[in-house]
């Protein structure tokens, strides 16, 4: 148990101790070595780097240096990342073998290890984190603490104004005050649909009930999205604090966070955060003597995309099959075990404490007319700087892909960007300058979604992409309502037919008709949005569909049934390497003769392409 005074003292002392994390001119002789322990960097062995650093420091009895594990810095493509503070030096792709050199040169002599610096888009080597173009256009609010603090130490969170917002709310504000601030800030749900958060809180506060709940939706199911995971891994206390604030506001005393079991690191760190908060008396009975009770529990998902839908999620928390309920009644009226329940997404919660501390006006000054604040995107696919970016609403797609993302690798062209995962759509080249906010994305046939942003180059077939998403929805449809269960299956069959080169023009019309019907008649958001990938690719890449069904041609050469592998007789020297490499003996020809491919036998595996030293096969 800690009193408010004790917490304030921790904050003061710790803040001073950690000044070098945020102040490059900090008057200290200490140095902190921060090592990213997000999922990406952990997979590329960052825990070993941490161990190695500690060993060297101990062995050489080096003083005034600390090694700290942090959450995600965002630039996952260049991981594992090591940052030295206070001078803010950014080392990329570090291996355990580099630790010795960093200690010897940087820590002991103050020299930069040039070879480990990160190359910027223009090819120049950049020393400091904030000089990298990847970070220049970003504004970090939800990710404020990711990469700054050790997520497993509550004191480090407290040092940077942690739990100050909760204190302010419990001591100085009524629930109505909180709702007003959140409403005025213009914050909207970051899970994808963009429902005004203040309004949701107000709706949940309204009913009179003996029991209410607050829930955090951390069932980040969109393939290619990992924002929520990074927040939970890098700054779990910000979610604990926001949920406590939400509980106070709507009148709940119990909270649940529903996390995917596929995110073991996030679950582990969040559990640590809960335990620490309990130990400090920030969770539990009569918090800080204010009479407010609140406790928090983790519930694990078990691999069902539909559980990201709020009512399916509630069913799953209750231990049942995660099938959505018919709305209304909305969870604000009848949610968990029939009680009024507030459900917000992780990223939404991560903004709350900042809004309370800095005010609605500050928050609403960022962003566009209808979409305020920032949005975190998981940038992935065919783009140079894969990683996590947080930008003000209204930033254009071009800025994200080219200025932050560093453009498309291998000199290829941008073809489309996909937002909103299986519920969203593709944005083609001509809309690259659209400012990203809820409305404008909807207008061009996509949606904000939870924040996955996948870039595709010109080697991707848009019909095959639509098929990929339909495969996903078909396997994730819960089966409760017919349009979704059977409709999406029929759509997938039609798309498969087209990709196999057996489609007709009639099939395209069928797809359109089915799409409209499924959207109109499905029970929940999953079905209502499942046809979106088809609709948006049809809208912008109809010519590709037509090529598939009329010319039987896939220009991206991704649909194998339509691609033919041919040996160019001009270039073939008759070496026979392809013949030997072919797993199905489809290549004919005698020694030193020009070879030919038997198209009936060929399985289009592409092995021969790689084997030919004369590039005669294509």
């Amino acid at each position, binding site marked *: 148990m800690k009193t408010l005074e004790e917490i304030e003292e921790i904050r003061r002392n710790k803040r001073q101790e950690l000044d070098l994390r945020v102040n490059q001119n900090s008057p200290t002789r200490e140095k902190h070595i921060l090592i990213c322990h997000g*999922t*990406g960097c952990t*997979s*590329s062995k960052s825990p070993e780097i941490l161990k190695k650093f500690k060993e060297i420091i101990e062995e050489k009895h080096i003083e005034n240096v600390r090694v700290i594990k942090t959450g995600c810095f965002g630039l*996952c*493509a260049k*991981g594992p990342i090591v940052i030295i503070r206070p001078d803010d030096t950014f080392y990329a792709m570090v291996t355990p073998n580099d630790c010795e050199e960093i200690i010897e040169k940087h820590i002991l002599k103050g020299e930069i290890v040039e070879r480990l610096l990160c190359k910027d888009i223009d090819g120049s080597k950049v020393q400091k984190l904030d000089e990298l173009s990847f970070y220049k256009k970003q504004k970090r609010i939800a990710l404020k603490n990711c990469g700054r603090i050790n997520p497993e130490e509550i004191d480090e969170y407290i040092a940077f104004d942690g739990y100050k917002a909760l204190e302010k709310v419990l001591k100085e504000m009524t629930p109505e005050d909180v709702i007003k601030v959140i409403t005025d800030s213009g914050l909207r749900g970051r899970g994808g649909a963009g429902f005004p958060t203040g309004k949701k809180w107000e709706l949940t506060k309204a009913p009179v009930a003996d029991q209410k709940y607050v829930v955090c939706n951390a069932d*980040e*199911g*969109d*393939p*290619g*999205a*990992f924002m929520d*995971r990074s927040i939970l891994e890098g700054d779990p206390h910000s979610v604990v604090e926001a949920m406590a604030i939400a509980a106070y506001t709507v009148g709940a005393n119990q909270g649940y966070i529903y996390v995917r*079991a*596929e*995110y*073991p690191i996030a679950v582990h760190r969040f559990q640590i955060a809960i335990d620490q908060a309990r130990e400090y008396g920030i969770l539990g009975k009569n918090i800080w003597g204010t009479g407010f009770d609140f406790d928090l529990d983790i*519930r*694990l*998902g*078990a*691999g*069902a*995309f539909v559980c990201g839908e709020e009512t399916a999620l509630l069913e*799953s*928390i*209750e*231990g*049942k*099959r*995660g*099938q959505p309920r018919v709305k209304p009644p909305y969870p604000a009226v009848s949610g968990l075990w029939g009680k009024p329940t507030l459900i917000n997404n992780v990223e939404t919660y991560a903004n709350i404490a900042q809004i309370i501390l800095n005010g609605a006006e500050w928050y609403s000054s960022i962003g566009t007319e209808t979409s305020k604040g920032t949005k975190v995107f*998981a940038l*992935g*696919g*065919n783009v140079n700087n*894969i*990683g996590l970016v947080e930008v003000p609403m209204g930033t254009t797609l071009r800025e994200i892909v080219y200025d932050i993302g560093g453009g498309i690798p291998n000199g290829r062209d941008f073809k489309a960007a*996909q937002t909103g*995962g299986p519920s969203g759509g593709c944005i083609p080249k001509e809309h690259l300058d659209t400012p990203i906010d809820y409305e404008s994305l909807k207008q061009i046939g996509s949606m904000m979604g939870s924040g*996955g942003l*996948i*870039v*595709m180059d010109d080697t*991707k077939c848009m019909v095959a992409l639509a098929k*990929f998403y339909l495969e*996903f929805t078909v396997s994730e449809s*819960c089966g409760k309502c017919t349009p979704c269960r059977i409709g999406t299956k029929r759509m997938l069959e039609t798309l498969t037919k087209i990709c196999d080169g057996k489609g007709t023009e009639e099939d395209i019309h069928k797809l359109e008709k089915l799409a409209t019907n499924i959207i109109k008649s499905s029970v929940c958001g999953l079905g209502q949005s499942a046809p979106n990938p088809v609709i948006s690719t049809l809208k912008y890449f109809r010519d590709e569909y037509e090529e598939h069904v009329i010319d039987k041609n896939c220009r991206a050469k991704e649909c194998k049934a339509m691609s033919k592998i041919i040996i160019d007789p001009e270039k073939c020297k008759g070496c026979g390497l392809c013949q030997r490499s072919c797993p199905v003996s489809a290549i004919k020809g005698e020694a030193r003769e020009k070879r030919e491919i038997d198209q009936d036998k060929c399985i289009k595996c592409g092995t021969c392409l790689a084997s030919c030293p004369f590039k005669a096969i294509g």
Partner: protein
Amino acid sequence: MEEIKCNCEGVYKEILEKYDKDKSNLIKILNDVQEKSGYIPLKAQQEISEYLNMPLAEIYGVITFYSRFTLKPKGKYHVAVCLGTACYVKGSQKILDRLKERLKIEEGETTADGKYSIEATRCVGACGLAPVFTINNEVHGKATVKMLDEILDQIDANEE
């Protein structure tokens, strides 16, 4: 029907006793069993049914709804290829195809000798390393078909 007896002396006693006799704990318990046994055996289902006082059919319904739970044991080496969008765009399908070709089993199946099983998994969240596959939860990033073959060759060599 054969009488099912369980007074919580069973194999899964340790797991069950961590939780209250509350139906909402079902998924947590199943997650623990899956973790411990690599699948959810009938015996475990029976014990859970007794403990939470709920029908076996209902438990079976929950198990088959969630893709993380399996009724069959996984292989000693469980290879999961990520088919999240970021990995798909970077060619993870080719890795899955090669894996199926090499092991001669389909997704969700286990080889006859119980050595390998394959899963096509959704985003594991390591998109920065796409395409990725995992073997018993160890992530292998920036994967290629060649790399997959090398790793499996290594496992085969070590096993012999």
